[in-house]
């Protein structure tokens, strides 16, 4: 029983991380129907900026004196950096291709993904970069079950961010504008919602969430690497599709499911096939409900 609970905790933690990355995919797909392959690289870039900032603070001594403050600063700055990066990428690589075929935009996204991950490699080196791990070591134990402080922090941050996003999208005016653009770009531009700005905002928010996930992954696992964006990226996209693409709640749900499936598959069946389980679940769900669990939410009006 305790084994089950421990794996459950592991699964929720991983699921939360996938949910954060999946949100970026789903929101971008909702507005411009593009699978942003470069999204995994925003995740990696966030992790890198986090480690750079935290090491910098450690070097200056701030990390020992004000750990929480440094961490908050690192989060905010990394999220800002990735938002900045994402807006730029969108302007350069995706905006000019909005009228072209979807495949052209997809290839551009793939090229951008290769470019960004190699850019990270060239500027940061091919070796892993370790996170200063003096933070948040240890955990609370209930018998055989240990919840580490990091796991609690990750789950807590994830819930906070998801809640914040929900507030933003469903309760504010900007959120309404985002939902309108996702539903029907042309009509919403007719009511003077600038679709360009909303799209940039969507990219920025998505990348910010991915960056937060990146930092948390770095803290949780201990290090970041330039190619760490790829596999979580496709699994997160699978999670987004699973939950219903374009649907924010769906992405959260999908992320959680994929994370749990992966951990339980590894824990009860075998660690070697854990990536396979995630995809099998995806294919099965899509076979019976082709639009995902919560239904899709995209602009499918055709002129």
């Amino acid at each position, binding site marked *: 029983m305790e084994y089950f609970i421990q794996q459950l905790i592991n699964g929720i933690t991983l699921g939360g991380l996938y949910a954060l990355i999946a949100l970026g995919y789903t929101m971008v797909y909702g507005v411009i129907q593009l699978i942003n392959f470069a999204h995994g690289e925003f995740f990696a870039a966030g992790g890198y900026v986090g480690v750079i900032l935290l090491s910098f603070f450690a*070097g200056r001594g701030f990390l020992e004196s004000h750990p929480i403050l440094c961490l908050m600063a690192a989060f905010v700055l990394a999220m800002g950096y990735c938002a900045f990066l994402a807006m730029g990428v969108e302007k350069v690589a995706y905006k000019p291709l909005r009228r072209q075929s979807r495949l052209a935009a997809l290839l551009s996204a793939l090229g951008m993904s290769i470019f960004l991950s190699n850019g990270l490699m060239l500027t940061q080196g091919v070796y892993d970069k370790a996170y200063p791990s003096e933070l948040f070591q240890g955990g609370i134990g209930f018998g055989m079950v240990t919840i580490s402080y990091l796991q609690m922090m990750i789950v807590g941050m994830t819930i906070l961010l998801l809640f914040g996003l929900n507030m933003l999208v469903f309760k504010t005016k900007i959120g309404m504008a985002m939902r309108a653009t996702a539903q029907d770009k042309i009509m919403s531009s007719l009511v003077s919602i600038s679709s360009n700005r909303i799209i940039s905002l969507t990219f920025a928010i998505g990348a910010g969430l991915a960056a937060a996930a990146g930092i948390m992954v770095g803290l949780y696992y201990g290090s970041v690497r330039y190619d760490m964006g790829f596999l979580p990226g496709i699994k997160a996209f699978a999670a987004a599709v699973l939950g219903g693409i374009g649907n924010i709640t769906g992405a959260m749900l999908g992320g959680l499911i994929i994370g749990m499936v992966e951990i339980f598959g590894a824990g009860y069946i075998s660690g070697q096939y854990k990536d396979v389980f995630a995809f099998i679940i995806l294919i099965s769900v899509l076979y019976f409900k082709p639009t995902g669990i919560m239904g899709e939410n995209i602009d499918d009006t055709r002129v």
Partner: protein
Amino acid sequence: MIQEFKKVWKPYAIGLLWLLGLLWPLLGIHPDGTLSFGTTFTVWVYIAVGISICLLLYVMNKSGSLTVVSRPLAAFRGVVTQTTGKVPVWVWILAVLIFALAYPQLTNRYAQDVATNVLIYICLGLGLNVVVGLCGLLDLGYIAFYGVGAYTYALLNLHYGLSFWLCLPVAAFLAMIAGSLIGYPTLRMRGDYLAIVTLGFGEIVRILLNNWMSLTNGPNGILGIKPPAIYWPSFADGFSFEIFYLKKLHYLYYIALALAVFTIIAVRNLNFSRIGRAWESIREDETAAELMGVNTFLLKLLAYAMGALFAGLAGAFFCARMRFVSPESFTFLESAMVLSMVVLGGLGSIPGIILGAAALIVLPEVFREFETYRMLVFGASMVVMMLFRPAGLIPAKRMGARGEEKEG
């Protein structure tokens, strides 16, 4: 020219500043607590200079300062087009064929190696073209069929000693079955879901190949596969046939050439057949095709199967050439490369895909000199290609005209 410059200087300046803002945190913040601007500036200046030169050329082109160069070039191109237009197509095809046949005699080993690679990828690209270009099914896991073909030959040869020529149709057939199996669950899904599901399938196949030790020997791969062999008359002790292994690189080149030619002819015939037209109708508008009586279900399955067939052939040859096969050759990046070749060359256009395959194999080899910058430049060039030539290098000629085009 100043007017042109005025139009573009704002985004240009913002872009450069943005680049600086992005580069600095990566290069300028150090773990020992110092901040520096030196490295960042150097790198940034290099990139800024490069972009400025491009911008300068662009502005000059727009404002007409370059006409002194571009007009004679255009005229020259017109002349070339006119003279070559008079030569019938078959002469060109013959010339290419002769060149291809004579190629191994003219070049060194490395070039032959590259050329053989190009030919394999031509097969792959044309096969993927059947799925993506003709039928409009976005398949991101195409490389799985390649792997199935390769492992089929490897296992059959290792355990049963079957020859390459016998295994070729078997590999193709098994790949076709794999294609149908993978295609079947995806038939109800729409465009981009198809992408992620096929990607998932590609990864599943790779993980299975990697982890199923008893069948595939896992990550160690399968060694000791025999290359293609033919019976050659030998006059040693009287007239008899002996097995002659086609190990030398130029023999392999010719086999690859034969496979590639076969693929080109097959895909071309498929393209201009009833099946090809049915696929195109599915690509354009599936609902309308269904209404017109096209059996979309069967035809989509057929598209997968045919695409997989060519991949299986290429895979069996790849295995025979390397004499060693391992799951590391069948990653998603490979699938992405093949897709890039198809889109880069021009979706649905056979000469375009040939060119795309050649470009994407030869250029990284040329860039090998840059070592670590290789993939960076590759990624950037993919983006640039899509920005400037989204229809591909040689876009396909459409059969019949569309309503919008007539008005244009």
